[in-house]
């Protein structure tokens, strides 16, 4: 049985159990509501028994077809398919066509559709870090006019979804809304509780110094047990590990992410400390680390050859008993922080979401679809249930709270989101810049450059790209 298959079946089973719990809770509410109405002599409407929230409405007059492009698989395609039947219930005359393509190629394909101004795509569901590139070619529709028609829903979305993962231009709470990011993720701290206890460590490391101690204590290569793993593949992956550590030491990409700024700030004490700490951790690295993306890291943690991943993207697969040999032993917490005065827990955060194509011929219907997808309990608790059942990983804090009992890593996400920073600056050049810093990180790990030289090269490389892109006037 495959990992996904098992995950899917397990989530279905868990969801069923959860629904039973909800049903019991609701039954109590029904009884309470019935008792109350009987007492005060009101009507017999028992709203609390209803799964529908204040945002619920139906519309059988709205018609059309909405085509959504999305990467195939968990967290993308599957949650969308999960909530689709409820959308059909609300909008019976809107047909939603979910076009799931290979994850690795989806951005290229979508960018081609966007640049060719194709109306074949009404909605794109992708990583929000890639949206600036789509925004730069005017492919994204301004969602404010749509959202403002339903202030109740909009207010709920804004309150429940961390600002850091919302896509607004400019990137602050007052910016214009261009996409809905219903899915959130953060770099998390994964550790083996059983091995830490056996080693006499009973506290989850708070700082990188403490993390180093754990990595050393658990490192036992003779038993094929390595004390550190992270996604340090050359390029963007290595870049985000470094940026995550830099952030925890209080560092930033640029002096200011606004006009008059955009000057890189890697070559300083914070950058040095971050890279130095990473190098110390690398002494305990799993052999696959320098070629690892999430897949390699998760597999190594699942089979027990890697036992400590203090800076690793959140995922449900490590607690899946079919995928992992240690589903109940892997704990999750905040990524450590630095030890300096400016240090803080600042895990990287990303998210997936949907925007409405500026070239869509069904914008109103497209908006209703993505709004439904991001509604959570506000519209109907069945939407939340279906979203989670189908491997969704919400950005909404209320949903993380609600389902953390069946998705243990949600607890880590919930703690991370309020203090997290974006995994890339929200500019079209973000991934090029990530590659530049990642390549420099790799050159230090492989001994090609000193930390100082690599930091200087990061600043120089990033500044070159920013200059070419016209950020300096």
């Amino acid at each position: 049985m495959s990992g996904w298959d098992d995950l899917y079946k397990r989530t279905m089973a868990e969801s069923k159990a959860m629904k039973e719990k909800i049903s019991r809770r609701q039954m109590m509410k029904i009884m309470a509501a019935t008792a109350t109405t009987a007492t005060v002599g009101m009507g017999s409407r028992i709203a609390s028994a209803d799964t529908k929230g204040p945002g619920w409405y139906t519309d059988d007059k709205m018609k059309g077809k909405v085509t959504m492009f999305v990467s195939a698989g968990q967290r993308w395609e599957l949650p969308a398919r999960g909530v689709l039947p409820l959308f059909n219930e609300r909008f019976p005359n809107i047909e939603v066509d979910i076009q799931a393509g290979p994850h690795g190629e989806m951005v290229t394909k979508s960018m081609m559709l966007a640049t060719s101004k194709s109306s074949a795509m009404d909605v794109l569901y992708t990583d929000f870090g890639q949206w600036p590139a789509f925004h730069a070619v005017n492919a994204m529709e301004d969602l404010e006019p749509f959202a403002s028609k339903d202030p109740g829903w909009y207010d709920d979305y804004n309150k429940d979804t961390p600002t850091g993962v919302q896509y607004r231009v400019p990137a602050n709470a007052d910016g214009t809304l261009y996409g809905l990011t219903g899915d959130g993720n953060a770099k998390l701290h994964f550790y083996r509780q059983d091995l830490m206890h056996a080693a006499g460590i009973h506290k989850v490391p708070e700082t990188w110094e403490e993390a180093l101690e754990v990595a050393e204590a658990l490192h036992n290569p003779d038993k094929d047990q390595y004390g550190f793993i992270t996604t340090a593949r050359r390029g963007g992956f290595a870049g985000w590990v470094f940026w995550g550590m830099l952030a925890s030491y209080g560092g930033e990409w640029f002096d200011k992410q606004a006009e008059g700024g955009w000057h890189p700030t890697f070559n300083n004490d914070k950058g040095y400390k971050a890279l130095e700490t990473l190098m110390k951790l690398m002494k305990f690295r799993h052999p696959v680390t320098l070629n690892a993306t999430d897949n390699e890291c998760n597999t190594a943690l699942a089979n027990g050859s890697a036992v400590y991943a203090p800076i690793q993207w959140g995922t449900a697969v490590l607690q899946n008993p079919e995928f992992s040999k240690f589903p109940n032993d892997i704990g999750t917490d905040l990524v450590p922080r630095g030890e300096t005065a400016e240090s803080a827990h600042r895990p990287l955060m990303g998210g997936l979401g949907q925007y409405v194509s500026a070239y869509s011929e069904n914008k109103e219907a497209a908006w209703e679809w993505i709004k439904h997808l991001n509604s959570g309990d506000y519209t109907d608790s069945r939407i939340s249930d279906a979203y989670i059942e189908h491997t969704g990983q919400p950005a909404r804090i209320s949903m993380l709270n609600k389902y953390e009992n069946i998705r243990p890593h949600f607890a880590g996400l919930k703690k991370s989101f309020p203090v997290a920073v974006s995994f890339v600056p929200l500019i079209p050049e973000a991934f090029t810049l990530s590659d530049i810093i990642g390549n420099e990180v790799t050159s230090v790990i492989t001994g090609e450059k000193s930390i100082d030289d690599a930091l200087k090269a990061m600043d120089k490389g990033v500044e070159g790209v920013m200059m070419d892109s016209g950020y300096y006037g």
Partner: protein
Amino acid sequence: MRSTMYSRMLFGLAIVLVFIWLVPVMWVVLTSVKPTNIINSAVPIFFDFAPTLDHYVEVFERFRFGRSMLNSFVTVGVSTLIVMIIALPAAYAVARMNLMHGDTWALVILSLRFMPGMVIVLPYFKIATFLNLIDTQIVLIVVYVAFGLPFAVWILRGFLLDLPKDIEEAGRLDGLSWIQIIFRLIMPMAAPGIAVTAIFTFVFSWNEFLFALFLTLDKGSTMPVALQKTIDLYNVLWGSLSAGAVLQLLPMILVVFLLQKHIARGLALGAVK
């Protein structure tokens, strides 16, 4: 005696080479029937496991391989047939008809194949959108014919140049037309070359990914695109990926197995020129 020893050594070397070639294939086949936790094992487990067909079930149920297989068979089969029908007379014309600048024309035809796919996929996409052909088998058939034809003409030309002219001239003296010469004389003689060309054309289109990715959505997608969907966000579904790879490989192995006699002869024939 010495010759026997030499033959045995060559045979032994051949076995070693075949084994080296087969190891990755066997690995994929084994992975396709391993449970996921065995696939994830830190130390590879080759035989000590209970085989499962779950991954095959999953590729059909979740990744809709049945539909993708049908699409692949239809688009690749039809396009290969069209390519061969057009390529044979075209190759004959280039090889035999003393066209002005015949060799140059042959090179020009082949140069159409040099165009990087990524450069022309956007215009293809725009045209297909305009003609409302996106996500249809027709669009892929047209593209595969356009891309397969130059290669097929070039290969067939090489085979046809190897054939003796005398028989054709005799046919012409007997009053056969060009078409009759091609189909009644050339085709039987060039059968191995035609088989090899058809196989190469088939294989190219069978494994083609780029155009299938961009010109189809879900309904019309072929096996290579469906296969790629097994690479998920946070983990590669190795079991499903391997099961899909085996399914994609099977028809190829079958075709090569059935036509191996022609292939061997065809390759030898082509090697002369």
